[in-house]
C-alpha cells in the first residue's frame, strides 16, 4: 500500500541519504524487518500518534529503525530497550513508547530487563522479531535457534548442550503484568494481515493506558539461514511455526489504569517533606561549653542494638545545632540486623567540626560492659565516662583523671515502666555529669523529636530528670 506517512520522505540518517540509500532500507532481501516496520508505521498512522511516539531501537539489525521512522527516536544498548522505554514512558506518560527488539537482544542479553518490564506491566509496546538467528553479528546461535539448526556457533546443529529454544510469547504470557501477548508471522498474506492487526492492537492498548503488550513476529533472515527468500518463508512456516505456535497467548480485558499526575514542584510541599521549618528554635546556651573543650567536643556512645545509643547521639547533635553550633554524628553497627554492637561518634564544635571521628573521646557513654571495656581506655585524660551500672557490675580501671559516673540507666527506666527510655536516662546523666548544654537545650531536642508522639513526652522528661538526679546523688 502507499508508504505510511510516518516513514521519512528521505532517509537522511542512512549514509546521509546519499544515492539509493535515501529511499532504500538497509535490510537484506527477504528480511522480515521491512514488513514489521511497515505494519508498525501503518499502525502509528492509523492511530494518529506520530507526534507522541518514541521508538526505542537497541543493538541488532533494527538498531537503525531511526533511519526510517519520523518519530522521536532513541537507540539503546543491547538488551536494554524495555527499560529505556520505561524511562521514556515515566518521563512523559502521554508518549507512546515502542521497544523494537530482536531475539538476541530480547531473549538473551536483555532477558532480565524483558521479563521485569513485562511483569511491571506499565503500558509500553514490545515488538519482538524472532528470526531464530543472530543477524547483525553474522549468523550465530540465538536463544530462539531451533534444535538441530546450524549456525556459526552451533555448526553441527543446536543440540541438548545448547539448551532448548526460548518460547518468549508463552513465557511473557505466563506473567501477570502483560495485558496482550500474540505471536504472528509474515510468511503469507493471511499471516501478514494478522500481524498488522496485532501490532495496531498492541499500540491501541498503550494509547488507552491499559497496559503492557508484546507481539512476537516470526520473521525471515534469508542471509543467515543461507536460503532464498522464498525458501526462508517456507522454513518459517514449516520449521519455526511448529515450535513457535502462532496466535493470541494472552488478551485481558482491563480498564485504563495508567494515569500519572504531572510532578509537583511546590516549594512548601518539598520543605514540609524535608521537615524544614522557618521557625527558629529557642536557644538557652550562653556560649560554647569551653569547660569541655575550647572549640570541638568529641563524644562516643556505645552499646548494643536496641540500647538507643544512636537516638541519644542524634539528640545531642540536634541540640547542638539548634544552639547554633556545628555537630556531626556517625553511627556504626555490627553486621547483625538486630542486637549487634551499635556505636556512635559525636562531635560538637563551635563553628566547624573538622574531624567527625571519635577515636579518643572526651566523653564516653557506655550501655554495657564490652563497650566500656573497649572504649574506656580511649577516653582522654580529664574526660568523662558515664555507664549503665545496672548491667556493668565491675567498675572499670581507668586513668585517675577521668571522672566516672555509674548510673543505673536500665534500672531507672524499668522502674519508670519503659525499658526503652534508658537512653534518655543516660542523656540526663550525661547532661548532669558534663554540663554540656543547659538542660532545657536537651529537653527541647527531646520534645521536638517526639512532636508526633506527644503522649510520650512526659515519660521521657521524667527519664531525663531521673538521669540528672542520679548523677547529682552520686556527687552528694
Amino acid at each position, binding site marked *: 500500500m502507499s*508508504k505510511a506517512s510516518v516513514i521519512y520522505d528521505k532517509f537522511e540518517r542512512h549514509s546521509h541519504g546519499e544515492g539509493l540509500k535515501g529511499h532504500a532500507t538497509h535490510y537484506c532481501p527477504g528480511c522480515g524487518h521491512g514488513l514489521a516496520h511497515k505494519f508498525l508505521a501503518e499502525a502509528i498512522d492509523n492511530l494518529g500518534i506520530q507526534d507522541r511516539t518514541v521508538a526505542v531501537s537497541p543493538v541488532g539489525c533494527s538498531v537503525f529503525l531511526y533511519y526510517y521512522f519520523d518519530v522521536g527516536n532513541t537507540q539503546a544498548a543491547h538488551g536494554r530497550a524495555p527499560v529505556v522505554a520505561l524511562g521514556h514512558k515515566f518521563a512523559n506518560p502521554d508518549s507512546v513508547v515502542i521497544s523494537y527488539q530482536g531475539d538476541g537482544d530480547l531473549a538473551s542479553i536483555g532477558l*532480565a530487563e524483558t521479563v521485569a518490564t513485562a511483569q511491571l506491566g506499565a503500558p509500553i509496546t514490545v515488538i519482538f522479531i524472532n528470526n531464530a538467528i543472530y543477524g547483525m553479528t553474522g549468523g550465530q546461535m540465538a536463544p530462539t535457534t531451533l534444535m538441530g539448526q546450524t549456525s556459526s556457533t552451533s555448526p553441527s546443529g543446536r543440540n541438548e548442550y545448547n539448551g532448548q529454544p526460548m518460547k518468549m510469547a508463552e513465557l511473557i504470557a505466563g506473567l501477570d503484568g502483560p495485558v496482550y501477548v500474540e505471536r504472528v508471522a509474515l510468511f503469507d*498474506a493471511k499471516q501478514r494481515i494478522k500481524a498488522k492487526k496485532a501490532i495496531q492492537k498492541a499500540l491501541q492498548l498503550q494509547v488507552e493506558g491499559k497496559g503492557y503488550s508484546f507481539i512476537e513476529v516470526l520473521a525471515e533472515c534469508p542471509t543467515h539461514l543461507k536460503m532464498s527468500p522464498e525458501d526462508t518463508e517456507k522454513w518459517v512456516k514449516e520449521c519455526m511455526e511448529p515450535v513457535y505456535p502462532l496466535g493470541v497467548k494472552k488478551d485481558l480485558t482491563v480498564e485504563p489504569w495508567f494515569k500519572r*499526575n504531572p510532578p*509537583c514542584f511546590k516549594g512548601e510541599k518539598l520543605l514540609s517533606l524535608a521537615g524544614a521549618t522557618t521557625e527558629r528554635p529557642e536557644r538557652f546556651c550562653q556560649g560554647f561549653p569551653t569547660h569541655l573543650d575550647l572549640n570541638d567536643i568529641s563524644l562516643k556512645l556505645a552499646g548494643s542494638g536496641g540500647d538507643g545509643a544512636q537516638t541519644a547521639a542524634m539528640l545531642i547533635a540536634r541540640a547542638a545545632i539548634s544552639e547554633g553550633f556545628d555537630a556531626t554524628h556517625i553511627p556504626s553497627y555490627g553486621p547483625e540486623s538486630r542486637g549487634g554492637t551499635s556505636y556512635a561518634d559525636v562531635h560538637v564544635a563551635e563553628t566547624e567540626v573538622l574531624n567527625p571521628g571519635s577515636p579518643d573521646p572526651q566523653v564516653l557513654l557506655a550501655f554495657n560492659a564490652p563497650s566500656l571495656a573497649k572504649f574506656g581506655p580511649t577516653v582522654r585524660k580529664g574526660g568523662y565516662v558515664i555507664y549503665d551500672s545496672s548491667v556493668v557490675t565491675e567498675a572499670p580501671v581507668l586513668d585517675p583523671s577521668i571522672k566516672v559516673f555509674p548510673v543505673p540507666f536500665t534500672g531507672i527506666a524499668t522502674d519508670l515502666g519503659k525499658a526503652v527510655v534508658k537512653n534518655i536516662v543516660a542523656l540526663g546523666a550525661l547532661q548532669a555529669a558534663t554540663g554540656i548544654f543547659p538542660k532545657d537545650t536537651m529537653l527541647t531536642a527531646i520534645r521536638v523529636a517526639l512532636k508526633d508522639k506527644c503522649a510520650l513526652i512526659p515519660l521521657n522528661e521524667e527519664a531525663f530528670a531521673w538521669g540528672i538526679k542520679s548523677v547529682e546523688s552520686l556527687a552528694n
Partner: protein
Amino acid sequence: MALKERPKPFLLPEYCKGCGRCLDACAKDCITLSDQINPLTGLVPVELDLANCNACGLCMDACPEPYGLRPAHEGEIQDFELEDPAKLFGVKPCDAPEPVDLPSEVLPLPRTEPLVIKGTYASALGALLAGCRHVYGYPITPSTEGAELMAKFLPKLDGTFIQAVSEVAAVNMMYGTAGAGLPTMTFTSSPGFSLMLEGVSYMIGAELPGVFVDVMRGGPGLGNIAPEQSDIKLACHGLGHGNTQAITLAPSTPQEMLDLTMLAFELSFKYRNPVILLGDGYLGQMTGKVQLPDAMLKPGIPKWAVYGDAMHRKNLISSIFLTETDLEAHNVHLNAKYEAMKVEARAETFLCDDAEVVLIACNTPARTAKGAVQELRHQGIKAGLFRPITLWPFPVEDLKAAIHGAQRIVVVEASAGQLEDEVRLALSKAGVREFPEIESVRRMGGVLPQQNEIMTRVLGRKEVLA
C-alpha cells in the same frame, strides 16, 4: 466502480531487492523475477507485467520496502523511468518542527532553619531541589537509604521511583528519562556502579545528563560495606568503554552532599554529560548540619530531548556512528566538551598559604586530615590541607598554588593510591616536574586513616601503610 479505482502497483527497479514476497501474493502471476542484475544495486529485481492486474493490492502489502511496490498514481506509471527519484518521492526529509529549549524555572524558597540529616538524605534532598522527580535504583549497602528516601518522597511529589531489576536496568531507565530531557539520578555503591558503567558509556556517547551518587565501599569483588575510596580510578578513568569522561565530585560533609548533588544536576545539563558524585560509606551515614538553599528548580525540556511530543519529534538520542569519520568527529566534539569542563575544577584549601606540610585528601579522610592540620598547627607545624572537590577535572591550578611553598606532600586516602595517582597525573599533565616526594597515609578495606596515623606520618616521618 470501486474495483477500477484501486491503483495498480508500480516499481522503480532500483528500490526492489528481489525478495519475491510479491510473487506469491499475486494471484494473477503478473510478477516475475527478472533475469537481469540491476547495475545500480547489484540485485535482481522483479518485473511487472500488469496486463492481467486486477489491482488487488496484495503485492504492495507484501513488499517490505517503503519505496518498493507502491500504488501507481495517474501519470507516473507511464513515464516513471524518466523521473528523478527525488521528484517522485520528494526531498523534504521531515516536516517536524524545529525544537526550542523550554527553560527551567528558579523558584525561591524561604530561609529555613538548618536540618540535622544524614549525607544520603542530604543528597536526596539536593536532587529533589534540583528538580529531579525520576529516580531509578537497586538496593545496595551503604547507599540504600537514598533509594528508600526517594521511594518515600517521590510518590508524594507525583514523581517516579522504580526499583529496577538490576543496576544495569536502573542506568538504562535513567538513559530513557534523560533522553526525554528530564533530570534523573540513582544511588549506588561500588559493585553497583561497576554494573552501571555500560550505561554510563552509552549516556556519554549519546550526550545524556544524569547524576550517579556512588557511596563507595570496600573492594575488590564483594569486598565489604565499609567506607573505601575505591572508585576514584573508575570515575576518573574507567567510565565504561570508549573515550569517556565525566565531572566527578567528592563531597566531604552532609552539607556538600546536598550542595554538590544540586551542582551535579546543573553541570550534567550544562554539558549534556553524566556527573558522578563519589561519597563514602561514612559520609552517607554521617549526620550533620545542612542548610537548605534559597531556591529550587523546576526543570524545563531541552531542545535536544526525545520527549515524545510534536516539538521534539525530529530528535534522535543515539551513540551509534557507523561511518568512521562521523564517529571520529563525534569524539572530537566530546573531547572539546571535556576540555570545556576543565573550568569546573574546584578545590578547598585550608591553611595552605604558609604551609610547609601539605596534606591532600578528599571525602571523609579530608575531614580527618583537617583535624590533623589543626592539631599539627597547635604543635607549631605549618600544616595545610588541599582538598580536591572535583576529582575530574583535577583542580591542578589550585594544587600548584597550594604546594607552592611546601616541603612535604602527604596524600591521605582510604585506597591503595587512587587519589595519589590523580595528583601525579594532574601534576604531570600540567608540566610540574619539581615537587616534594609524595608521602602516603593509606588504609584500605574499609579502614579509614585516623588522625593519629596522620600525626605519626608527619611527626615521626614514619610510613603509615596498611
